[in-house]
């Protein structure tokens, strides 16, 4: 089994290095194919490992070599495949394989074709390290690695100012969170003496709750950055500047769920500190609604999907925070499938529309892009949580969890959000695929994507439909390592009322969206309509003015303070002090140079002055010596 572990882990690395060899050369089709094949190999290995684990096999645990060892610190490159990590491996390798294949078509005309695959595979490798590591340090390697690849891929079109800006923003914001994570690691190390999951979690129950709380908080800060939770969420929407496959892979399916993975992985820790868990759940519920509200009015196709991702991450954190780790993981998996599908569909639309992102400028695309239309609609249905698609099983479960745990506020927030989700998802679908063909005004001739891209997407479609049926077997597998909590609403009537009520609510939201946006009267908004001028609309449109506030109250002051530090403090105070001291010495020399002017009479005068000085010294010393005892007596009298 270890062989498959190594293949799963290193095939992406090989793929990345292979593609990197050709970065400086023009586009080569085989680079994409080889990369896809290698990632596929990783996928196959992961599947074998999955069957192994499902079959009740041993947890695969290898230690490759020592990484750092000094003092009492010992960090190996250790990898573990257990029920949790194998889930993630499956998600990661499956989605990446599909995205790799898809990208061969999507990046067809791009100059940086080879470079794209190098970065993409490197990302897969980092993600694999992240999920497979058996210790926090290895997790951190992957954590930073995906951050780096995310930077490289968001800023992939580096000639675009906005893309590079978004890349830097994502990287720096993640770094802020990583600092929290790092501190969390330090706390773990100094309190438990190890960074291995096994040892650390075993030692945790004996620690005092305050320390555990701090560990929990700092680790969660790390998770907040990667999973773009409030207030570190702004980078995710901006990250949509990257190529769409990247958005599908990194900013929907895998990297952003790393935070959830971390919380799930540390379930033993968070079980000990339920108050932190409650905080996580509350924040998750807040973000779910907060992000959904911003998605309502947005006019950028990819950003809408990004906000929906953010919202779904909120759901996952609710589940994880409330202790339903397996539910969180299950939703993570289901979400990865339908959200990646949604993004890839959006990529097809973008290609067809020549990178136009405003859904109001599209409309009626279902005729030309039939398959994309079907896929995106089904993905949206899954996202909305309609029976029997994947979203229903995972999302409904989270609602149940909140209900069963008696967190009714969280429950109602999530319920409303579910309605909002359905609304904005189908608003998007309606705007893109139904109604008038508004794109004709802009002279665009849409076309369906390559066949093989659609074929590549089909597994996702399948999974988005059927993933819910894995629920029972998945539960059995993953509860080997995660707390075994089944959530049942005891009264069957309550249960059915809830399920059916939710379904009806969601369907109503979909119907409303269709009614409003699928008719032929939808026009490209020109900023004059009443709704567009309402305050609520403006707030939502400007994302609650949070990016503006960050720019205005954090970035600008930082820039200005930096400038002040350099120009005022460093040059005018610190350096000027040094130069001032040097200047004093220099000018003293300059002034006293007169003594040496060669003018004899001046020199004579100085000679006399010097004689006077020396003579007075002689007198003073003579007196001091003579009256030494008296002086001593006086001084001691003064208390010296």
């Amino acid at each position, binding site marked *: 089994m270890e062989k498959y572990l190594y293949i799963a882990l290193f095939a992406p690395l090989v793929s990345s290095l292979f593609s990197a060899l050709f970065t400086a050369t023009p586009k080569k089709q085989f680079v994409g194919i080889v990369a896809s094949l290698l990632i596929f190999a990783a996928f196959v290995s992961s599947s074998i490992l999955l069957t192994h684990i499902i079959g009740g096999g041993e947890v695969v645990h290898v230690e490759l070599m020592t990484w750092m060892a000094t003092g009492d610190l010992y960090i190996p490159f250790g990898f573990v495949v257990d029920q949790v990590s194998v889930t993630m491996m499956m998600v990661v390798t499956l989605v990446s394989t599909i995205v790799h294949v898809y990208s061969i078509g999507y990046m067809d005309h791009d100059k940086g074709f080879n470079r794209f695959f190098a970065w993409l595979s490197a990302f897969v490798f980092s993600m694999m390290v992240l999920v497979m590591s058996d210790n926090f340090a290895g997790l951190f390697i992957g954590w930073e690695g995906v951050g780096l690849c995310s930077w490289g891929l968001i800023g992939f079109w580096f000639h675009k100012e906005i893309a590079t800006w978004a890349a830097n923003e994502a990287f720096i914001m993640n770094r802020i969170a990583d600092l929290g994570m790092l501190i969390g690691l330090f706390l773990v190390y100094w309190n438990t003496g190890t960074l291995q999951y096994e040892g650390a979690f075993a030692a945790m129950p004996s620690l005092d709750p305050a320390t555990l709380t701090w560990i929990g908080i700092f680790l969660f800060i790390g998770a907040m950055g990667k999973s773009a939770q409030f207030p570190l969420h702004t980078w995710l929407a901006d990250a949509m500047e990257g190529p769409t496959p990247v958005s599908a892979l990194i900013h929907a399916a895998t990297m952003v769920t790393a935070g959830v993975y971390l919380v799930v992985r540390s379930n033993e820790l968070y079980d000990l500190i339920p108050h932190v868990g409650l905080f996580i759940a509350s924040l998750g519920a807040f973000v779910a609604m907060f992000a959904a509200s911003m998605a309502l009015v947005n006019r950028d196709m990819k950003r809408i999907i990004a906000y929906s991702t953010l919202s779904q991450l909120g759901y996952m954190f609710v589940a994880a925070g409330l202790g339903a780790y397996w539910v969180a993981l299950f939703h993570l998996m289901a979400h990865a499938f339908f959200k990646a599908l949604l993004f890839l569909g959006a990529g097809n639309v973008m290609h067809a529309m020549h990178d136009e992102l405003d859904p109001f400028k599209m409309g009626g695309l279902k005729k030309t892009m039939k398959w994309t239309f079907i896929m995106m609609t089904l993905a949206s249905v899954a996202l909305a949580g309609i029976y029997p698609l994947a979203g229903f099983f995972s999302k409904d479960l989270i609602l149940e969890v909140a209900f069963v745990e008696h967190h009714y506020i969280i429950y109602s927030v999530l319920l409303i959000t579910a309605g909002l989700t359905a609304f904005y998802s189908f608003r998007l679908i309606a705007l893109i695929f139904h109604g008038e063909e508004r794109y004709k005004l802009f002279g665009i001739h849409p076309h369906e994507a390559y066949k093989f891209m659609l074929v590549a997407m089909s597994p996702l479609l399948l999974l988005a439909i059927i993933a819910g049926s894995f629920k029972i077997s998945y539960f059995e597998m993953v509860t080997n390592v995660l707390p075994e909590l089944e959530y049942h609403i005891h009264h069957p009537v309550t249960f059915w009322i809830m399920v059916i009520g939710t379904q009806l609510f969601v369907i109503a939201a979909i119907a409303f969206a269709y009614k409003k946006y699928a008719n032929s009267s939808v026009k490209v908004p020109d900023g004059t309509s009443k709704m567009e001028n309402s305050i609520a609309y403006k707030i939502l449109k400007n994302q609650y003015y949070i990016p503006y506030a960050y720019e205005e109250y954090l970035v600008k002051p930082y820039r200005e303070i930096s400038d002040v530090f350099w120009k005022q403090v460093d040059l005018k105070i610190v350096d000027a002090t040094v130069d001032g001291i040097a200047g004093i010495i220099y000018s003293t020399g300059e002034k006293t140079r007169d003594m040496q002017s060669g*003018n004899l009479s001046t020199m004579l005068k100085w000679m006399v002055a010097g004689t006077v000085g020396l003579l007075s010294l002689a007198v003073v010393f003579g007196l001091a010596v003579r009256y030494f005892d008296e002086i001593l007596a006086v001084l001691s009298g003064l208390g010296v």
Partner: protein
Amino acid sequence: MMEIGLNHYLILSTILFAIGLVGIMRRKNLLLLFFATEILLNSVNIAFAAISHYYNDLTGQMFAFFVIAIAASEVAVGLGLLIVWFKRHGNVDLDTMSSMRG
């Protein structure tokens, strides 16, 4: 007041020495500077002689004697140099002698 003691002589010597120093410091003409040095030497001579007298010791007088000898040779050599300088530069102004500029 009426009894003249060693202190009187020493005070006189001090005053003369001071006058000599003033001369040294304010004179620009090298010749007049030489005059001032003569005053210094003489003021010291007075002190020597007075101490010699009041302590009944001839050493002071001996020193004064040698001081005079040295003064004489100094004048001889100094004036010689002065004349050479004057021949070359046309003046004996101290300010023009700035070849020792540091």
